[in-house]
């Protein structure tokens, strides 16, 4: 079983309950929502990820705009795919006036549990236009096979 953060319920306070609900709704509707529940004790920022299944492979895509290819680390242990890295920003000069800041910098990590039928030897990754795409091949026996049945 996965470890889940324990949220202790305070003695019932209606306003507090509404406050929490509003925050949860805001987070759910925020288009830049960064899923931030990664790790129980060492919480880090986790990038948004898509996992796509095709006939012969799994595709994992993560949005990592502004991350340098050399600051990115992709590894597989058993069936766990781990994406780690550091998003660097440029040093802000003292004189610079900031009008708006919606982007974030810092380290991030994301671990995804892959289905069992992957071929760990056939994994490739590419990074283009700020999107990391990891191709993970399925094992031969897990691929859909077409069996021709002769009809007499």
């Amino acid at each position, binding site marked *: 079983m996965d470890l889940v953060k324990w949220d202790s319920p305070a003695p019932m306070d209606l306003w507090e309950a509404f406050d929490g609900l509003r925050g949860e709704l805001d987070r759910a509707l925020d288009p830049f929502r960064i899923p931030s529940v990664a790790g129980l004790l060492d919480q880090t920022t986790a990038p948004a990820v898509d996992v*796509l299944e095709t006939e012969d492979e799994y*595709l994992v895509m993560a949005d990592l705009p502004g991350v340098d290819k050399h600051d990115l680390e992709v590894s597989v242990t058993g069936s766990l795919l781990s994406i780690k890295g550091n998003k660097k920003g440029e040093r802000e*000069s003292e004189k610079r*006036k900031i009008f708006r800041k919606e982007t974030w910098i810092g380290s991030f990590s994301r671990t995804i549990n892959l289905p069992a039928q992957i071929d760990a030897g056939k994994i490739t990754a590419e990074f283009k*236009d*700020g999107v990391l795409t990891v191709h993970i091949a399925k094992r031969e026996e897990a691929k859909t096979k077409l069996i021709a049945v002769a009809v007499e």
Partner: protein
Amino acid sequence: MEAKDKTGNLRTVTPACSISEDEGLVTVKVEMPGVSKGALEIKIEGNELVVSGNRSPEAHRGHYILKERRAEAFKKFFTLDDSISRDDIDAALVDGILTLKLKVKEAAKPRRIEIA
């Protein structure tokens, strides 16, 4: 599967952006992961600077197990005031971040008056 909403449009999201100014140079950074140079459009319409870009639809050939990435297209409007020069805008797209450099007109810069 094409990720379109009920009206048939691509799911458009306002991208995250940062705006800063340093000595007459306004830097605008817009995060548009997955948008290639060819799919990006930057135009000025009156007082508005419009940045839009579509993501490459390479992804739509299987079924999703997990889908957290929301945007299929990005669109962002910026209002330019009179102090910004319209003719001198620099744009660069690197690793999914569009950097626009706009210049403040000479006439709008703070002028120091020397005391004789």
